[in-house]
């Protein structure tokens, strides 16, 4: 274990021959057909590919929401699929920040309260959690909107709440499904900057599923998926990195 972790020091996530199928018998669908990948710490990884190729399935497995059918998985040294349900939930709460495509904000909570949810899940007292969350919203230009309800806000503003919520508990892994799809170009760039800043700290990783060609140039690595498999191509071969790092 110690020898292995020493050699994996800079690798945040490693998959070996990971497969996932849904259902069984006649209706069995192979969504992942043997995924091998290694994602380094301090990296922003973008996951692209045609619809139905298995992107959502893959990030669900990496974030411990689904368990792989076979194969080896290590996320910061843990294979979440081997944890009992309750522990896996707690592992997610401690380790993963999510930005869902549909935002999934709680409609009756204010922006700050929504962003505070991961802290509340981990037991932070309500007022403290809301204050911290409001700080994160302010960094995203939402200082004035901390007390607004989601329905009073635009799609872009709601997306920023979702991003503040994903970052508020300082997770090691950030998983984003189409984080910029609802945003105009300028806001999209800003959001990517925030996500990048989160990724660049040591011991962190950010995975972004996206169709947005405009943001691909911010990626450190682009993973192309097709039909349940992955093709890794170093970003330097395709698009010059936008940031010096």
């Amino acid at each position, binding site marked *: 274990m110690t020898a292995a972790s020493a050699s994996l020091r800079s690798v945040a996530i490693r998959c070996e021959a990971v497969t996932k199928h849904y259902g069984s018998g006649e209706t069995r669908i192979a969504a992942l057909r043997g995924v091998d990948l290694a994602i380094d710490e301090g990296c922003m990884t973008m996951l692209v590919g045609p619809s139905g190729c298995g992107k959502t399935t893959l990030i669900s497995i990496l974030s411990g*929401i689904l368990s792989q059918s076979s194969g080896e998985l290590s996320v910061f040294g843990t294979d979440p699929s081997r944890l009992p349900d309750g522990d896996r*939930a707690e592992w997610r709460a401690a380790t993963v920040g999510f930005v869902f495509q549909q935002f999934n904000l709680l409609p009756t909570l204010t922006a700050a309260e929504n962003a505070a949810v991961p802290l509340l*899940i981990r037991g932070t007292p309500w007022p403290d959690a809301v204050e911290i969350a409001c700080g994160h919203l302010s960094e995203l230009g939402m200082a004035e909107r901390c007390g607004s309800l989601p329905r009073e806000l635009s799609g872009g503003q709601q997306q920023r709440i979702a991003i503040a919520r994903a970052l508020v508990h300082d997770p090691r892994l950030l998983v984003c499904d189409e984080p910029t799809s609802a945003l105009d170009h300028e806001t999209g760039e800003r959001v990517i900057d925030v996500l990048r800043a989160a990724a660049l700290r040591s011991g962190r990783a950010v995975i972004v599923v996206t169709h947005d060609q405009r943001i691909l140039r911010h990626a450190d690595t682009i993973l192309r998926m097709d039909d349940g498999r992955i093709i890794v191509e170093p970003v330097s071969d395709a698009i010059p990195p936008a940031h010096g790092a």
Partner: protein
Amino acid sequence: MRPLDRLAYRMLIGDRLKYLSLVAGLVFASLLVVQQASIFTGYADRTGSWILDSDGHDLWVMDEQVDMSEDSKPLLQTALSRVRGIDGVAWAVPLYKNYLKARLPHGKLITVRVVGIDDASLAGGPRGAAREALAALRRDQAILVNEDQLATTLAVAQPDGTMRPVAIGDSISINEHQATVAGTFPATPDFFWDPVLYTTYSRALAMAPPERRSTTYVLVKAKPGVELGRLASRIREATGFAALTTEEFAARTRTYVLAQTGILINFGITIVLGFVIGTLVAAQTLYSFILENQRSLAALKAMGVRNARIARMVVVQVLVVGVLGYGIGAGLAALSGSLLDGAGLAFRVTWTTLLLGLLAILTSCTLAGLLGIRRVMRLDPASVFKT
């Protein structure tokens, strides 16, 4: 409050309209349940009122076949002397009770319950009667009438056609025997509606038809220090008669009336219907509330809330609306009760009713909650990635 419990509460009250309709459903259910149960208790309580009102003795000795307060089975002539001879009996007196026809001054014929109490001691008379009223029974032809019914069942038509309450000095003919109203007494409202008239034992026997001229009950006072249960079984062994305390007799009456008359079934149906309708409304609203929250709850699961904590959140929501709805509903029921009570309807809210009602409402809420929780448990957290 734990942060997630507060979160559950905020999810609940966030949508005012939905929240109010949830609470309103439960208020409605609780109101129905508590109100029907209290009316039921009120009526059940009123069975055997006249025996509960009777005063002065410890035990009622009666034919073993007697099921309740309105059931008069004649005792053998020897009953009184046999009971008097039993060890531990301080004194024993006869009491006569029967339904008889009474003709009011203006000629109207009604049914009354005539109770004849011992001429000498006047034991077994109505507890609330003033000393003078009881003493007035010693006058010739005297009867005492129930205060509450003076202006209703016993009202007298005047020559001009208007009605007036029956009054002291009025003549009432009971089974063709002349009687005079000598006084009144306050009586606890009775489930059985025919007016109770008190007179002396000998006068009551004289009024009764010849074939019914025998003691109905023997009232017994125990010697000081004698245990009533023991005395009752000694009487039973020695005479073959049943000997009951007033409370026991009232309980036997209540049980019989509830079991043998339609009121248990009728009220049972009303209570069950009210309960079912009310709780279905509540449960349905609650369940759909949980379903509408599915997406939010799935997101919480994805973000790392354990299933057990999700269940707890639903329980918090159920408890909040359940307790609030029940509190308001039961309060309204009590309020409506004090109005009904004023209108002469039987209505009694007991702690038992309130507790059972709360239990019933919370149970149905919990069931709805459990159904909801079952759905939420099965929620696939991966669904949060779906569009």
